[in-house]
């Protein structure tokens, strides 16, 4: 394999060819950024797109939030979930829906999102276990961490099948082989796409660095938790974003979680127990 067959710049320039987020997302975001905005206005905006509204209600009623009773109005769902979570719910619904019907080739879209959702749930479970503030944000970090792989599958399908083949033959981890072929990897491409979508920098950093945990000083807790969640989910083989073999667990990231190996069975149980229902809520009719 010759190095850098496809230059990074070429891929970055083609990010515009990927599906864009629906207009309802942008309108909802404006309403959420408006200091005078209200939940009523936001619910009206979402209600103007029936597909988005019904998908959002399905996800709101899934095991992701564990609401005590079923909600059947967008306004009520947003009120119960709260503004911070609403942002994440709208963005994740918009992203999954935008890519849902794209052909991927080697990996099924369901399998890809199942992996991503499981990573989000595992990261959130780890954050709760660590008693971090606002553990819900970790769900979105985990959900989006491999989005760059989706870009590569869609934009460079032929090169990606070569990468997958080499990985299957255990020539190396998937992201290492990506770097040989593309002079970049899904982590960097994903961070670029998230930045293009104006997603807050913490999410971009975690996507960019989830395979490159450095020292505790230079590593954010989001990055460390995403890394550990990815290892857990790859071990359990809940869906896949292409990787077949379990990556190396970085000890710095593991120590940042302050967990003991004996904490893992509960985390695994919660992750498995929640993922299937949430995946169905996002993807099924």
């Amino acid at each position, binding site marked *: 394999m010759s190095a850098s067959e496809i230059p990074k710049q070429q891929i970055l320039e083609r990010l515009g060819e990927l599906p864009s987020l629906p207009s309802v997302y942008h309108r909802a975001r404006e309403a959420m950024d408006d200091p005078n905005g209200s939940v009523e206005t936001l619910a009206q905006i979402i209600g103007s797109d029936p597909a988005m509204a019904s998908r959002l209600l399905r996800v709101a009623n899934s095991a992701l939030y564990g609401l005590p009773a079923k909600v059947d109005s967008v306004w009520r769902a947003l009120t119960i979930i709260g503004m911070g979570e609403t942002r994440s719910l709208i963005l994740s619904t918009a992203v999954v829906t935008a890519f849902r019907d794209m052909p991927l080739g080697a990996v099924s879209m369901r399998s890809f999102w199942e992996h991503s959702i499981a990573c989000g749930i595992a990261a959130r479970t780890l954050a709760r276990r660590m008693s971090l503030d606002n553990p819900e944000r970790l769900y979105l970090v985990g959900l989006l961490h491999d989005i760059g792989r989706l870009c590569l599958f869609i934009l460079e399908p032929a090169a990606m099948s070569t990468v997958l083949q080499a990985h299957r033959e255990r020539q190396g981890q998937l992201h290492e082989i990506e770097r040989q072929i593309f002079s970049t990897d899904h982590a960097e491409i994903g961070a670029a796409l998230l930045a293009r979508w104006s997603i807050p920098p913490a999410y971009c950093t975690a996507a960019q660095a989830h395979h490159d945990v450095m020292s505790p000083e230079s590593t954010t807790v989001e990055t460390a938790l995403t890394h550990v969640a990815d290892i857990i989910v790859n071990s359990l083989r809940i869906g896949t974003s292409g990787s*077949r073999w379990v990556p190396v667990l970085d000890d710095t990231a593991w120590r940042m979680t302050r967990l003991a190996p004996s904490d893992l069975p509960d985390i695994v149980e919660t992750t498995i127990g929640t993922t299937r229902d949430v995946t169905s809520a996002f993807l099924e009719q």
Partner: protein
Amino acid sequence: MRLDDITTGMLLAKDVCDPNGNPLIRAGTIVTGRHIRALKSWGIGEIAIQSDAPPPAMAPRDPAELAELKAMLDVQFSLSNPEHPAMRALYDICLERALSQR
């Protein structure tokens, strides 16, 4: 039976449900330490136990089957760092799950 009297390995006779009637643990589940801790945290004080529950026993494993599963997992973990304590724990969880699904 009161939660204080429950020991691991007992067989659950009825679904344990939350106040809305959604099942939390299904009837027929063998109670583990994790279940007991969860029940305590949910504030559930009593559950129905099947009186003729079989004594807990590890089902005897075919050594060839075990070796086959381990060989599969060894390949799956071969590019990682299986000597790390957390990876060892994950390996064991995967093995346990694979065995329970046979």
